[in-house]
């Protein structure tokens, strides 16, 4: 059991939770994740650690409500408990110091850049975050991310704020010499199409590029192999070998297909959950 200390609604479907987990908060490093379970009989789902604080003994996660479990989690309130939380899992991010690091975040994945960029900035790296969304009100954690780096670049599809266009286009501009300086490293965390596009953008350059893979998982400790990802023709387990991998070696086609294995079942479960919710509100 782990108590929820703080909850923030970032967008209608994106929720931030700060959770009491002192052991995890003490050991966590940027890039790692936790596995949580919300109810008896519930799934184990991986969530990237957005931030952690050993002093207060808390870990911050951001969840997007896309399925049964994430919706159950999103509905929890301050003072309630997560049934289980396990971590920190996976390999922390390894980035050689002294360079210019650009973190690219899209959707709720951007949250994972928070503790990472904060740490890189603190050790003296030059840090830029490119944060993208369809429109202004879907950009998350802008204040926190602005503080976590030297320069925060906002991108929206509709131009409601910042650069009008995709994060890849803004990244290309910077790579082409647009003021901020050429990056040595790019870390992209977000939806698969975005991460793939970032991989294509830096492909053929000498910019080391990593993406944070988010496959299905069960145990998160290397026991089942559910999270297999092909990287450079080799099978890796994202839970223990990742979740960060060299963007240009990841087989995105396979990863996209593998994430669809339970689509039909997930639909059955979601419809059932919706029905239950309706029955509860009407009675």
């Amino acid at each position, binding site marked *: 059991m782990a108590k929820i200390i703080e909850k923030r609604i970032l967008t209608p479907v994106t929720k931030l939770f700060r959770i009491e987990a002192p052991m995890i908060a003490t050991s966590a490093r940027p890039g790692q994740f936790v596995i949580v379970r919300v109810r008896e009989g519930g799934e184990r789902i991986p969530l990237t650690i957005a931030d952690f604080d050993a002093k207060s003994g808390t870990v911050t996660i951001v969840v997007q409500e896309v399925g049964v479990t994430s919706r159950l989690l999103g509905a929890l309130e301050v003072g309630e408990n997560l049934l289980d939380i396990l971590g920190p899992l996976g390999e922390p991010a390894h980035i050689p110091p002294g360079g210019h690091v650009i973190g690219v975040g899209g959707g709720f994945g951007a949250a994972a850049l928070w503790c990472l960029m904060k740490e890189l900035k603190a050790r003296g790296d030059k840090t830029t975050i490119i944060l993208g969304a369809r429109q202004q009100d879907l950009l998350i954690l802008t204040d926190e991310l602005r503080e976590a780096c030297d320069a925060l670049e906002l991108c929206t599809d509709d131009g409601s704020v910042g650069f009008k266009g995709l994060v890849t286009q803004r990244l290309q501009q910077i790579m082409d010499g647009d003021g901020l300086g050429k990056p040595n490293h790019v870390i992209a965390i977000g939806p698969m199409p975005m991460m793939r596009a970032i991989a294509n953008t830096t492909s053929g350059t000498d910019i080391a590029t990593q993406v944070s893979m988010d496959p299905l998982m069960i145990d998160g400790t*290397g026991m089942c192999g559910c999270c297999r990802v092909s990287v450079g023709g080799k099978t890796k387990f994202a839970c223990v070998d990742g979740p960060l991998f060299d963007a240009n070696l990841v087989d995105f086609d396979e990863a996209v297909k593998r994430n669809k294995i339970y689509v039909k079942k997930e639909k059955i479960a979601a419809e059932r959950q919706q029905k239950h919710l309706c029955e509860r509100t009407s009675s």
Partner: protein
Amino acid sequence: MPAKRITKTPMRTRDAKLRATDFVEVNIGYKAEHAIFEAERCLRCQQPPCTDGCPVHIPIPELLHEVAAGNMEKAVDILRTANPLPAVCGRVCPQEEQCENNCHMAKQYLPVGIGYLERFIADWERSQPKKKKPKPPQRPQKVAVIGAGPAGLVCAGDLARLGYPVTVFEGLHAPGGVLRYGIPEFRLPKDILDWEIELLKDMGVEIVCNVIVGKTFKLDDLFDKMGFSAVFIGTGAGLPSFLGIPGENLNGVYSANEFLTRINLMQSYDFPNTDTPLYVGERVAVIGAGNTAMDSVRSALRMGSKEGMIVYRRTEKEMTARQEEYEHAIEEGIQFRWLTNPIEIIGDEDGWVTGLKCLKMELGEPDASGRARPIAIKGSEFIIPVENVILSIGTSPNPLLVNTTPGLETNNKGCLVLEANKPQTSRKRVYAGGDAVTGAATVILAAGAGKDAATSIHADLMADLAEK
């Protein structure tokens, strides 16, 4: 002495057709009359070879004597003192290779049904009101156990009996290790496992789930920050092997570990009442022929597949599954493709499994394992149409703890190396046993190793106290 009956009192089982559609236990168990009847078959040998064949050294003739006399309570005491997991072991031990293989009756007739009797005694205890037992005086030194599988639980149980405060750290959200995630409900009901673990807790064993030692904190923290005097590593062999053939990452391919974990730990058989799904098609091929392979293929039937088959490159003679499991699988309609070597998993363009490409094999000279080496027959390629391929070709120890703990020596298979004369690792006061040391083996060998480690820990901690 009255003449002994030559046959073993048979185990009652549920109808094969019926049971293949649900997860209720296959074996029904002896009634008291059966148990007394069967226990009377024991010859009460002066030097009982059955006990020598038991990794936890249960004094079997004594035990059977009490059962034959109807003294079930005494039998329970004898059994539980020797083995903290009798309801589990009575169900999953390969008795035919251990105690029953050594039974003098087996020389001419059928051995005494020691396994069935162990199960009966444990189940009898469960049917009685719980007895409160006085706790032994608590010792000053605390022991940590890493992994709540059979090795860790037995080690913890024995240490608690000796009066040590014991804390077991488990990575998953529920204790039991392979007994929880691996062995299916129809062989080992989880409420029986829960009950047995509950008894350990009653003895004072503390179990903390959701902790991965090495990640959540380091092994050295147990000594330096948390005040433990000794650590037992029982982390098992949880890392699944893959064949390395094309198509292994297609949708519908599972490691046996994942397939069974989804069903057992995550209870996907009850989806959508539970939340974890499983994808099972009409036809399922399981590669391998050990107990885990049998568990996987029989589980697939119960999850609704129409055709379940074992694909194995050797023959019936070389398979490692228990005879009982094999027979139960045959009764349930499982097919067996012997001398069949998978070389590729075929899929459609959306990434779903459609078939398993295999080669026909023939047996040649014995290989390093002493078993006849299977040799491919040229041009014998063929495709078995299936929607699922489950790989049950073995597991190895998880490197997670070793990778994060300095000074823990392992061999080239990743197994922990122990000292020659005791179950201590290359680190002082760090002990180990079970699959983490031997590689994938049986529940009872792990239990035996846990027991031996408890004895060794006790001796060393007593010596430490005396030195102070």
